[in-house]
């Protein structure tokens, strides 16, 4: 069991984390943050804590817990 913690205000919606998630559980929100970006959400519970998403995120948005 693992999960991510996403600092939505930092997210710029670049979708790079979405692309690398092996479980395909990340996706953009319909909402936008104060910077004007649709931010990322963890959409499903299957996180394996591989940290891929955090590794590619240029804005250090994602923390991973395992």
């Amino acid at each position, binding site marked *: 069991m693992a999960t991510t913690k996403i600092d939505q205000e930092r997210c710029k919606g670049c979708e790079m984390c979405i692309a690398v998630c092996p479980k395909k559980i990340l996706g953009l929100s319909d909402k936008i943050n104060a910077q004007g970006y649709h931010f990322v959400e963890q959409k499903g519970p299957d996180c394996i804590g591989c940290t891929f998403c955090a590794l590619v995120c240029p*804005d250090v948005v994602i923390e991973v817990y*395992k």
Partner: protein
Amino acid sequence: MQKVFGYPRALTSKRTHYCPGCTHGIVHRLVAEAIDDLGIQEQTIGIAPVGCAVLAYEYFDVDFQEAAHGRAPAVATGIKRVHPDAVVFSYQGDGDLASIGTAEIVHAAARGENITVIFINNTVYGMTGGQMAPTTLPGQKTTTSPYGRDTTKVGFPIRVSEMLATLDGPSYIERVSVHDPKHIIKAGRAIRKAFEMQIAGKGFSLVEVLSTCPTNWGLTPIKALERLKEQMIPYYPLGVFRSPEEVAEE
């Protein structure tokens, strides 16, 4: 549950001004992690370039000097000679380091200046809006090579790591990439190793990081990572070009 990935201490909480998906941010994090791992935050002094990373001093929680365009290695030299025990690193783009700053990087390397250079090769001048860099690939369109880089008129990209590796001064030179998690981990290791070299007093170390500029490449961040992998790496092979103990690998 344990935190297995978190925000590095050596970064401030400030949001960066970088474009969405710009890998400058990844490299910032890797540098900060190396500083954290080595426990050198209180003795590190960074040098920011003129380039998209011009505001790096706002993002790293260490002392910083903002250098004139291309002169970061000279500034680093001045600092290091005053504080030989500090850990001094410059963070430079390819316009900064490989064009206007050619003399400074070659001579810092030749001197074996005991500093660490993080060199961001994104084949373009990001900050000024996408002009040709010395590292722009043949045929690549930029705002100052609008018909594609014509090697018969403006010549060929410079492979900085290979060029500097001909010098006797450097202790460690590696080219890495940040196009996927595996390579990002490798890049992080290289960056840490470069700092370790400095701490051990071995002299000049440089890590060339192949990086993206989605904005000026006109690509989405994800397509930009693909271009990095498919077009840049063939021209700029990854590997160790100089190392006290190893030979070139990968």
